[in-house]
């Protein structure tokens, strides 16, 4: 068994941008964060990391053959097409109120995100 490497976090600037986007977008679409805000934190960190590396917040809950090509295609840049068209977020960042996993929060602080993601 190998010890997995600690995944690197995004820059503070991108994290703050994606955190702010997530709050604003949840409120605008009437969606809520996961009852487990740890899930929310991890996804926001992933979006910010992709923004740093690729210039766009590509969905962190997909595997891609070519991330740069996917960014150019834009389909899975957050908010992705399924979210914009049908409020479907398989990453569980934006959940409709009828979703079993939906909590009652539309806000998460920078510190809350980093408290979670610093554990990994």
């Amino acid at each position, binding site marked *: *068994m*190998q010890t*997995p*490497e600690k*995944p690197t976090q995004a820059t503070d600037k991108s994290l703050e941008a994606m955190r702010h986007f997530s709050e604003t977008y949840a409120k605008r679409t009437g969606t809520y964060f*996961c009852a*487990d805000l*740890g*899930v*929310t*934190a*991890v*996804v926001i*960190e*992933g*979006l910010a*990391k992709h923004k740093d590396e690729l210039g766009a917040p590509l969905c*962190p*809950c*997909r*595997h891609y*053959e070519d991330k740069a090509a996917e960014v150019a295609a834009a389909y899975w840049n957050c908010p992705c097409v399924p979210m914009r068209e049908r409020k479907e977020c*398989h*990453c*569980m*960042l934006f959940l409709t109120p009828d979703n079993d*996993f939906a909590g009652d929060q539309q806000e998460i602080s920078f510190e809350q995100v980093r408290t979670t*993601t610093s554990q*990994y």
Partner: protein
Amino acid sequence: MSAAAQVTDSTFKQEVLESDVPVLVDFWAPWCGPCRMVAPVVDEISEQYVGQVKVVKVNTDENPSVASQYGIRSIPTLMIFKGGQRVDMVVGAVPKTTLASTLEKYL
């Protein structure tokens, strides 16, 4: 991190395809929220079926070959292998009961 062993592009054949018992493979990525949610479920399955099922994890960011070979798109994807063949899969953060009942078919 969890109890299940990480396998890589280079160890996948030996650890998964050549296993004598069925293998549950958890394809995950570091900053995927639902992957963090399903990880403890996968660990519980590992403990519940010890000796009957081998449970391993593949980090798709670090092991793109095997992830691409099996057409992984949405993650987490949980795949079941038996006798070197993929026999079933479940996509997303599923409850333990769903995963267990899928797995039971291949024991």
